[in-house]
C-alpha cells in the first residue's frame, strides 16, 4: 500500500469514526426508570404518566410499549443489563422462570403496603417465598347467561343441560355451554371442577392437598351423565373453544364462560353482565375458576442501571397505590388488584361482577403445578386432551379420567418444591 493509499484509508477511518460517534446510541440516563409493557398496557401507562409523572422525586418514567404481548415476552427473554427494563408488566406465570434466570429481583414490602393486596395475589407473584412484583390487575373468568334464552340464573349443572336439550331444536342452538374466554385449559377449568375434577384441591384449612387427585369415577360418571349421549357427545359442551364467542353473541349458545378482559364486547352487543361461577352438580355448589394477576415486576437490571431504589419507589408509589391504580385502570379497564382501587366508584359494575364471582369460587393459577410435566403432560396440555379423547374420539370417560387424575396428582406433588 503506497503513502497516498494509506492517507486515503486514514481519511476514511477518521470519517467513519466521526460519523459513528455522532450516531452511537447513548446510554439511558440514570434519572430514567424504564418500564416495559405490552401494546395496551404500555399505551395506557403512557397516557396516565403524561398527566402525572412525578411519582418518584428526581426521576422520570419512560414506558416502552411493545407491539404485542408475545413481542414483549420475547424481548424480556432476550433482555440484558444493557438493554433490559427496570420494571416489566407481565403475568404471574412469568415469575418462576424469570426468577430462576436471574432476571427478576425480589422486593420486600412494608406491612402497610402488603395490606393493600390479597395475600393470594402477593403469593402469585412470589417464587420460593420471595416477592418479585406488585399486583396490578386481576384476570379471571365467569359464566354469563343469555337472558333472551334463559330468564333466571341456573342453580345446578343439570339444569343447564336440561335447558339446552329443551331449546336445542327450537332455537337452533350450537351448544349449551362453551368456553369463550381463557381457552379450554385455563377458562375451561370451571367445567372440570363443576363435574368433580379439580387441578388441585384444598382442605378445610385452605391448605393444598398433596398426593391425592380427584376421583375418576365420580368425574367420569358425571361426564357420561351430563355431556354424553351413549358414546357420543350430546352437544352441550364442545371440545373446542373455536366459535364460542361468536355463537354466544349470535344467541346460539345460552351459557358461556367469558374473560373479564372481554366484557365490553358483550355489553356493546346489549348483554347484561349477569355473571356467576359455573354451578356444580349439587345446588349451592360452584365450580372453581382460575384467577391470576398481572404484576409490575422488578428486574435485576434496575440495580445495574443504578435505578433500583427509584424503581422500588415507583412500584410502591404508583403501581401499588390506590391513586395510581385508579388512574391507570380508568383507561385500561381491567379489574384493579389494589383494594382501595377496587372499592373506588370508578370501577364498573361489570368489573365488580367478575370480582364477586372470583370471590365466590376463584382459585389461584399456580404455575408450579399447572406447567409441570412430571406426570407426563402439563395441566395445560392434558385438560383439552381429555375432552378430545372423550367427546370427539368417544373414549371411555372414566378410564380417561383415571389417566388425567394421575397426571395432575403427579404434577402437584412435583411442583411443591417450586412454591
Amino acid at each position: 500500500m503506497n503513502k497516498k493509499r494509506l492517507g486515503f484509508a486514514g481519511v476514511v477511518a477518521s470519517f467513519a469514526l466521526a460519523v459513528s460517534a455522532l450516531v452511537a446510541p447513548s446510554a439511558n440516563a440514570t434519572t430514567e426508570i424504564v418500564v416495559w409493557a405490552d401494546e395496551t398496557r404500555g399505551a395506557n401507562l403512557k397516557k396516565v404518566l403524561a398527566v402525572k409523572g412525578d411519582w418518584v422525586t428526581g426521576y422520570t418514567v419512560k414506558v416502552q410499549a411493545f407491539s404485542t404481548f408475545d413481542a414483549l415476552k420475547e424481548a424480556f427473554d432476550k433482555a440484558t443489563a444493557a438493554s433490559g427494563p427496570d420494571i416489566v408488566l407481565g403475568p404471574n406465570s412469568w415469575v418462576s422462570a424469570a426468577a430462576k434466570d436471574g432476571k427478576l429481583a425480589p422486593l420486600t414490602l412494608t406491612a402497610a403496603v402488603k395490606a393493600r393486596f390479597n395475600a393470594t395475589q402477593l403469593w402469585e407473584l412470589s417464587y420460593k417465598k420471595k416477592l418479585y412484583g406488585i399486583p396490578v390487575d386481576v384476570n379471571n373468568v365467569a359464566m354469563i347467561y343469555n337472558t333472551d334464552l334463559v330468564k333466571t340464573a341456573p342453580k345446578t349443572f343439570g339444569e343447564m343441560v336440561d335447558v339446552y336439550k329443551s331449546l336445542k331444536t327450537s332455537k337452533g342452538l350450537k351448544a349449551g355451554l362453551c368456553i369463550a374466554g381463557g381457552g379450554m385449559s385455563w377458562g375451561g377449568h370451571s367445567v372440570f371442577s363443576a363435574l368433580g375434577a379439580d387441578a388441585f384441591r384444598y382442605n378445610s384449612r385452605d391448605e393444598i392437598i398433596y398426593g391425592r387427585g380427584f376421583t375418576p369415577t365420580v368425574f367420569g360418571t358425571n361426564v357420561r351423565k351430563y355431556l354424553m349421549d351413549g358414546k357420543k357427545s350430546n352437544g352441550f359442551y364442545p371440545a373446542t373453544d373455536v366459535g364460542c364467542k361468536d355463537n354466544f353473541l349470535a344467541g346460539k349458545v345460552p351459557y358461556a364462560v367469558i374473560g373479564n378482559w372481554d366484557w365490553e364486547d358483550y355489553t356493546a352487543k346489549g348483554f347484561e353482565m349477569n355473571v356467576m361461577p359455573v354451578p356444580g352438580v349439587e345446588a349451592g355448589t360452584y365450580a372453581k375458576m382460575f384467577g391470576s394477576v398481572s404484576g409490575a415486576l422488578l428486574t435485576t437490571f434496575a440495580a445495574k442501571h443504578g435505578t433500583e431504589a427509584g424503581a422500588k419507589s415507583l412500584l410502591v408509589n404508583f403501581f401499588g397505590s390506590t391513586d395510581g391504580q385508579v388512574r391507570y385502570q380508568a383507561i385500561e379497564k381491567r379489574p384493579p388488584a389494589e383494594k382501595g382501587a377496587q372499592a373506588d366508584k370508578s370501577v364498573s359494575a361489570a368489573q365488580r361482577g367478575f370480582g364477586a364471582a372470583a370471590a365466590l369460587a376463584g382459585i389461584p393459577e399456580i404455575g408450579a403445578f399447572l406447567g409441570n410435566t412430571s406426570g407426563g403432560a402439563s395441566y395445560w396440555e392434558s385438560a383439552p386432551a381429555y375432552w378430545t379423547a372423550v367427546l370427539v374420539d368417544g373414549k371411555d370417560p372414566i378410564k380417561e379420567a383415571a389417566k388425567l387424575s394421575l397426571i395432575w396428582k403427579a404434577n402437584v406433588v412435583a411442583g411443591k418444591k417450586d412454591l
Partner: protein
Amino acid sequence: MNFLIRGRVALVLKIVIVSLLSAILLMLTQSAFAQREYVIAAYLAISVLILALTYLTKISIPLKFFIPGILLLTAFVIGPILYTVGMSGFNYKTGNIISKTEAIELIKAEGTEASPDGIAFDLALGRIGSEQAILVSDVTNLKYFVSTGKTRTEVNPADVTLNEYGVAIAAPNFTSLDDSELSGADKSYSEIKFKYDGDFFIALEGLETGIVSQQVLKYEATNDQFVNLVDGTLYKDNGRGNYASVNDESTILEPGWRAPIWFENYSKIFTDPRVREPLVRVFLWTITFALLTVITTFALGLLLALALNKPIRGRRIYRSILVLPYAMPSVMSILIWGGMFNTEFGAINTLFGTDIAWFSDPNFARTAVILVNLWLGFPYFYLISSGSLQAIPSELQEAAAIDGANPRQIFRKITLPLLMQILSPLLIASFAFNFNNFNLIYLLTGGGPRNNLDGEIAGATDILISYTYKIAFGSETQDLGLASAISLIIFVLVASISLYSLRKSKVLESFA
C-alpha cells in the same frame, strides 16, 4: 454510465459508500461492545478492516466481488452453526442462562432476608460530613437515628425536623440530599448495608423506606462456595452450573449459570426415554412427509405444466390462476386451511356433509398436512417444470415421433429423463426444505394430534424440527442445550441425505 465505474466520480462514490458502511459497522461495534457482546463486536471491527483493505487497496480484484458474500455467510450461516455446536455442549436451559460471575453476584445480592418481625422504617437519604447516611424515623415509637455503613447514632426527637407525616427530614450534622441528587445517589445507597443492630442492617426498599434485614448467604471466594450464615449449610459448585447443598444435591441456589457438560446433551437423546422413544417414529414420519410432499407437488406441478405446454385457449389466465397459491403468503394460506379443516365449523366438512375430526385423528391429520402442503407447493413445481419443458429441444421429441414413438414413450424415455436432469437439484432442495418445514406443522396442527393423557411428547404430525421445538420450548423449562444437540443431528441428517441424493443423481458430476 462509465463515469460510475471509472474516474474521479467513481472514486468519490467509493469513498462515500465505504465510509458510510464503515461508520454503520463501527456504530454497531460500539453498541455490541456496550452490550458485552465481544465476539460480535470483534467480528464487526474485523469486517471494517477487511472492507477497507479490500476496496481501498489492490490486494485482490476477485475479493472485491466475493467479500460481501463471505462476510454475510460468516455472520448468518457459519456463526450460528458454530454457536449451536458450542451451546450443545453446555447445560444451557431455564435457570442456567447467565455466566457464573453474574450468578455469583446475583446470589450474593439476593442472599439477604428481612428480619422475621418485618421491621420497616421511613427514612431520608443524606450525609454525615462526606459519608453517606440515612436519617431513620421510627414513627411508632417516636425514635430517630442516623445510620451509616459503620455507625448508628441516636438523635434526640427534639432536634429533628418532621414533615407532615411525622417523618424526620433534618437532624443536626445530617445533610439531606436534595431532589436533584437523589437519582445520582441511587446505586451507591442501594449497595450500603446501613448499621442497625448486631448482624441486622437496614436495606433500602425505595428512596423513602428501609427494611431491617440480615445477610443469610456469604460467598467464600477461596473455596468457591456459599455458606448459609443461619444454619451453616455449605453450597458448592456441582459442576453442572449450580451451587448445590453438600447435604442434599437437589437443593440448589438460584440462579445457576451455563456450565460445560460436553456430550451429555447428545447422550440424553439416546438415554432419556422421554426424548428417545418418540424419536424413531418422528424421524420416519419426517422422511415420509418430505418424500410425499416432493412427489405429490412435483407430480401435480408437472402434470399442469404438461397440460398448459400446449397452445390452448385462455392459457395465460390459467397460468396466472395456478400461480396464485404461490403468490399468497403461506402463513395466511395455512391458517385459512386450518379453519377449513375445523371439525365443527370448517368448510370442508360442511361442503362434503362429513363429520371428520381432521386434527384429532392421526391419519386424517397427516392427510390434511400433505394436502395443504400440496396446495402450497405445486405452483413452484408448475413454474419450474414449465420453464424446463421450454428448455428441452423440440427436435428430440419430433425425431422420436418420426421414429414411431407414441406420446407416452416420448414422455417416459425423453422428456422425463431430461427434466429430471434439470430438476434433480431442486427436488433435493425441496426435500431438504420440507424436512424442516416448521411453519406448516406448527401453524396447521401444532404437531398434533398427541395423546397427552398417555404421556406422549410427540404428536402424530410432528416432524423432527417441531419435535425439537417442543423439547426446547414446549414446557416451562427451555432446554436450549438439548435443542442445539438435536438441531445438529438434524443438520447432519439433512446434509447426509442431500449429499447422498446429489451423488446418486450424478448432478454434481454434471456440474463439474
